[in-house]
C-alpha cells in the first residue's frame, strides 16, 4: 500500500467518525502556520556566536502583546503563565527592551517583531558604533590615535543588537494577515480584563529556529571536517559570494598577475548590507545608493570609453560581504598579492569608492581620504588631483563637494583593505562629514522610504518603474560627477568630459528594481532566462548569504553591469551561450563574457526577442582568505560563518489548562482501572454468568 492511499484511509476514517462536513486534518484544527516569518539566525566568527536559536523541538510560550516598556513587568515577573512569547511592535524593538528580555530569558520563550510600516523618527541601527573596527586599516600599528574609532564614531546610533546573542528565537513578521490572526487570537484569549488573570485556553505560539553550529567558527569548521560519524553533517558555512567587476579595456582574465603597461583606476561600491534578521536587508542608503550611482556612471561612460582609447583602464568593482569585515575587498587584495587576480596591486593607480550617497534634498558630498598615507607626498599629490577633479566636476553640476577635517580617518570602506596592503591614493565619496547621517545604518528601516523614494499615488507598477523621482535625479547628478571624474582620471579630455551625462530614467529604474520590486518588465529584458525566475517580487535582499548560494544582488548587478557597459553583439544564441564570437572562436572568452539576455516580450505573446550582450563583466570569488588558508581563528580576515538549520517555522494555537490535561489523564486512568477490575470480575465468573448455553466462558459484558 503506498503512502498516499494509506493517508487516504486515515483521512477517511477521521471523516467517518469524527468530523462533520469539512474533511480537515486534525492538525489544521489545532495549528495556524505563519507564512512570512523571517528569523534571526546564528552567525559565528573567530571568537563569538551571535544571533538567536530555539531548542530542537521549538520553543513554546503564551502570547503576550507588549504595549509599552512598563508592560514588561507582566512578562518578566507578574504574569501567571510563563514562559511568554512577546509580540513587539517595531517601535518597541529597542536595545533596552531586548536586553531586559534577554536577561529574563527563563520567562521568555521567544520574541516576534512586527515589521514596520513607518520608520522610527529617532533612528535605529542594530549595528555597532564602529563598523568593522578590527579588520580595517586603522589598527594600533597603523596609527594608534585613529584606532577603534577614536577620532570619529561612525555610527553613533548603533546599539549593537545585531551582535548580541539570544538564547530564544526572534522572528520578524510582515504586518499582514498573519499578524492580524495573532492579534485577534491574543485579544480573544489572553487579554486580562482589568487586572484579572486570563482564563484558559490561552493563545500560544511555537517558534522553530534550531541552529546546528555553536561556540565559534573554529569549532564549527572543525566539526564540519570530522567525518567519522555514520551520518556526517555540516554545521556551518562560510559567508561568501562573488565580487562583480568590469573593465573599460578588455583584460585577459585567464592570465593572472601583473599586466605590464596596464594602469587601472578602481571605481568601487559595496554590494551587501544586513539587518538584525536573516533575509531582510534592504540597505537602501548603505548599499543601493552607492551601487546604483556606480552602475549609472559606468553606463554614462560606455560611449566615451569605447571611442577614445584612454590610457588608463577604469575598473568597476562591486565588493560583496563588506558588512562582514570586508570579505570581498580583502579577498580581492589577497588574490592580487597572490597573483591570482587579473591585475595586481602594481597595476592599481588609484581608488575611487562610492559609499552612502543618498542626498536627502541636500546638495553636498564629502570626499574622505586617508590622512596617514597622505603624509607621503606622492600619494598626497595623486589624492589632491583626484579631489580637484571631483570638485571641478561637481561645480558644473551645481553641488559642492568638500573635504572633511584632514586628521579624520576613512569611514568604513573597501579602500581600507587596499591601504592595509600598501599606500594607494584613494577617495571615498560619502554624504556625511563625520558620523553617518544614515539613521538606520544596516537596519530593516534603511529602505525605499528612507531614501525618499516616493511615487505619486495611483501609479501602476509599470508607471512607477518609469517615474523619475527626485532621489533619482540627485543620484544621477552624483553619477554624472563620478563618470566625468573617472573619465578625466583615466586620461580623458577635460572639455570632452562635459558631454558625459548619466541617465536619470536608468537611475529611477534601478532604484525601483532594487528597492521596490526587482521582478519588473525592464529587468526581465536584461537577464538571461535561467535567472529570470529567480528574481523576487520583493525588495532586494542585500544579505550576502553563504558561499553555496548566489545572492540576488550579485546576479542582478552582473546582468545590469553587462547591459550597461557592454554592447549588443550579432552572435547566434548558441555561440553566445558558449562564450564564442563565432564557431571557431576560442580566445574571446578570456577577455569578454557573453550573456544571452531575454529581451523584450513581443506584444500579446510570451515569446521574447533575445539578444547577445558582449561585455567585460566577470565575477571573482568573495570568500574570506581565512577559509582559503584555513585559518579559522584569523584576526586579519573575516571569519564569519552562518549556522545551518533544519527548520524555520512558526505556528500559533491554543494551549489547554493544566487542570484539563490532568483531568483527561485522570479519567483515562480511571477508565483503565475500572475496566481492568470489571473484566477480571466478569471473566472470573463467566462460567456462572453465561451458564445457560452449552459452552460457558464467553466473557463479554
Amino acid at each position, binding site marked *: 500500500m503506498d503512502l498516499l492511499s494509506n493517508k487516504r484511509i486515515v483521512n477517511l476514517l477521521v471523516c467517518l467518525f469524527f468530523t462533520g462536513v469539512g474533511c480537515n486534518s486534525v492538525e489544521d484544527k489545532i495549528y495556524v502556520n505563519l507564512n512570512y516569518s523571517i528569523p534571526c539566525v546564528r552567525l559565528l566568527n573567530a571568537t563569538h556566536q551571535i544571533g538567536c536559536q530555539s531548542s530542537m523541538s521549538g520553543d513554546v510560550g503564551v502570547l503576550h502583546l507588549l504595549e509599552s516598556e512598563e508592560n514588561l513587568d507582566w512578562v518578566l515577573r507578574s504574569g501567571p503563565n510563563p514562559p511568554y512569547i512577546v509580540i513587539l511592535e517595531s517601535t518597541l524593538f529597542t536595545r533596552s527592551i531586548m536586553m531586559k528580555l534577554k536577561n529574563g530569558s527563563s520567562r521568555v520563550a521567544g520574541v516576534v517583531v512586527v515589521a514596520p510600516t513607518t520608520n522610527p523618527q529617532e533612528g535605529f541601527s542594530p549595528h555597532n558604533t564602529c563598523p568593522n573596527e578590527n579588520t580595517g586599516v586603522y589598527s594600533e600599528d597603523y596609527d594608534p590615535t585613529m584606532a577603534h574609532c577614536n577620532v570619529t564614531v561612525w555610527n553613533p546610533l548603533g546599539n549593537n543588537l545585531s551582535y548580541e546573542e539570544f538564547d530564544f528565537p526572534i522572528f520578524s513578521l510582515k504586518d499582514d494577515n498573519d499578524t492580524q490572526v495573532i492579534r485577534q487570537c491574543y485579544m480573544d484569549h489572553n487579554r486580562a480584563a482589568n487586572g484579572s488573570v486570563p482564563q484558559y485556553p490561552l493563545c500560544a505560539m511555537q517558534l522553530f529556529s534550531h541552529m*546546528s553550529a555553536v561556540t565559534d567558527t573554529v569549532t564549527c569548521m572543525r566539526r564540519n571536517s570530522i567525518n*567519522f560519524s555514520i551520518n556526517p553533517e555540516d554545521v556551518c558555512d562560510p559567508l561568501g559570494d562573488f565580487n562583480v567587476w568590469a573593465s573599460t579595456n578588455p583584460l585577459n582574465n585567464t592570465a593572472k598577475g601583473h599586466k605590464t603597461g596596464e594602469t587601472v583606476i578602481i571605481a568601487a561600491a559595496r554590494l551587501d548590507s544586513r539587518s538584525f534578521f536573516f533575509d531582510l536587508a534592504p540597505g537602501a542608503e548603505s548599499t543601493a545608493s552607492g551601487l546604483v550611482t556606480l552602475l549609472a556612471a559606468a553606463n554614462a561612460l560606455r560611449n566615451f570609453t569605447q571611442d577614445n582609447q584612454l590610457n588608463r583602464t577604469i575598473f568597476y568593482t562591486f565588493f560583496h560581504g563588506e558588512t562582514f569585515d570586508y570579505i570581498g575587498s580583502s579577498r580581492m587584495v589577497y588574490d592580487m598579492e597572490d597573483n591570482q587576480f587579473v591585475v595586481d596591486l602594481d597595476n592599481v593607480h588609484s581608488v575611487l569608492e562610492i559609499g552612502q550617497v543618498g542626498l536627502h534634498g541636500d546638495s553636498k558630498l564629502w570626499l574622505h581620504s586617508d590622512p596617514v598615507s597622505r603624509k607621503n607626498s606622492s600619494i598626497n599629490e595623486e589624492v589632491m588631483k583626484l579631489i580637484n577633479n571631483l570638485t571641478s566636476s561637481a561645480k558644473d553640476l551645481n553641488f559642492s563637494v568638500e573635504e572633511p577635517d584632514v586628521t579624520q580617518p576613512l569611514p568604513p570602506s573597501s579602500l581600507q583593505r587596499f591601504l592595509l596592503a600598501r599606500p594607494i591614493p584613494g577617495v571615498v565619496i560619502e554624504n556625511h562629514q563625520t558620523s553617518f547621517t544614515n539613521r538606520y545604518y544596516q537596519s530593516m528601516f534603511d529602505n525605499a522610504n528612507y531614501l525618499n523614494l516616493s511615487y505619486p499615488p495611483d501609479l501602476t507598477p509599470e508607471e512607477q518603474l518609469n517615474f523619475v523621482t527626485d532621489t533619482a535625479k540627485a543620484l544621477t547628478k552624483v553619477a554624472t560627477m563620478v563618470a566625468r571624474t573617472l573619465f578625466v582620471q583615466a586620461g580623458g579630455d577635460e572639455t570632452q568630459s562635459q558631454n558625459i551625462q548619466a541617465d536619470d530614467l536608468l537611475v529611477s529604474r534601478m532604484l525601483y528594481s532594487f528597492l521596490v520590486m526587482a521582478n519588473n518588465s525592464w529587468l526581465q529584458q536584461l537577464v538571461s532566462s535561467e535567472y529570470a525566475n529567480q528574481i523576487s517580487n520583493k525588495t532586494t535582499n542585500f544579505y550576502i548569504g553563504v558561499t553555496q548560494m548566489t545572492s540576488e544582488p550579485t546576479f542582478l548587478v552582473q546582468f545590469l553591469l553587462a547591459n550597461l557597459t557592454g554592447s549588443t553583439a550579432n552572435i547566434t544564441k548558441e555561440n553566445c551561450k558558449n562564450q564564442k564570437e563565432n564557431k571557431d572562436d576560442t580566445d574571446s572568452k578570456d577577455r569578454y563574457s557573453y550573456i544571452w539576455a531575454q529581451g523584450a516580450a513581443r506584444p500579446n505573446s510570451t515569446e521574447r526577442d533575445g539578444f547577445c550582450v558582449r561585455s567585460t563583466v566577470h565575477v571573482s570569488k568573495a570568500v574570506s582568505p581565512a577559509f582559503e588558508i584555513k585559518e579559522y581563528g584569523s584576526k586579519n580576515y573575516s571569519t564569519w560563518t552562518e549556522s545551518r538549520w533544519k527548520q524555520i517555522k512558526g505556528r500559533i494555537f491554543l494551549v489547554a489548562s493544566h487542570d484539563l490535561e490532568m483531568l483527561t489523564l485522570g479519567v483515562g486512568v480511571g477508565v483503565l482501572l475500572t475496566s481492568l477490575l470489571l473484566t477480571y470480575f466478569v471473566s472470573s465468573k463467566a462460567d456462572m454468568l453465561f451458564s445457560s448455553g452449552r459452552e460457558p466462558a464467553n466473557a463479554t459484558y
Partner: protein
Amino acid sequence: MNLERLPNEEKLTLCRKYYLGGFACLPFLWLVNVVWFFKEAFVKPTYTEQTQIKTYVKRSALGLLLWVTVLTTWITIYQHFRAQWGEVGDYLSFTIPLGTP
C-alpha cells in the same frame, strides 16, 4: 535454553564459557552469567559442580562491577568536560549533538 533440563556438568561448562568469554571485553556476558546462574549458584540445593559455578558467578559479578564503575566514571567525566576539552572532545566523540557546545 532451559537450565533445568541440563545435566550439572553441562551447566558448569556453560557457566565457564560465559565467564571466560567475558574477558574479551564483553561485560554483558558476565551480566548474563550472573543473572542466569544466580539461582543455580546460591539458591539450589548443593551439588558437586555448584562450588565451581559459585566462583564463576562471583568472579563474573566482580568483573561486571568493575566495568560498571569504570564506564560510569568515564561517561560522567566525558559528559561533563566534553565541551571544555574543545578540539580533543570533538575528536573523541562519535556523534556531536547539533547546537550544543
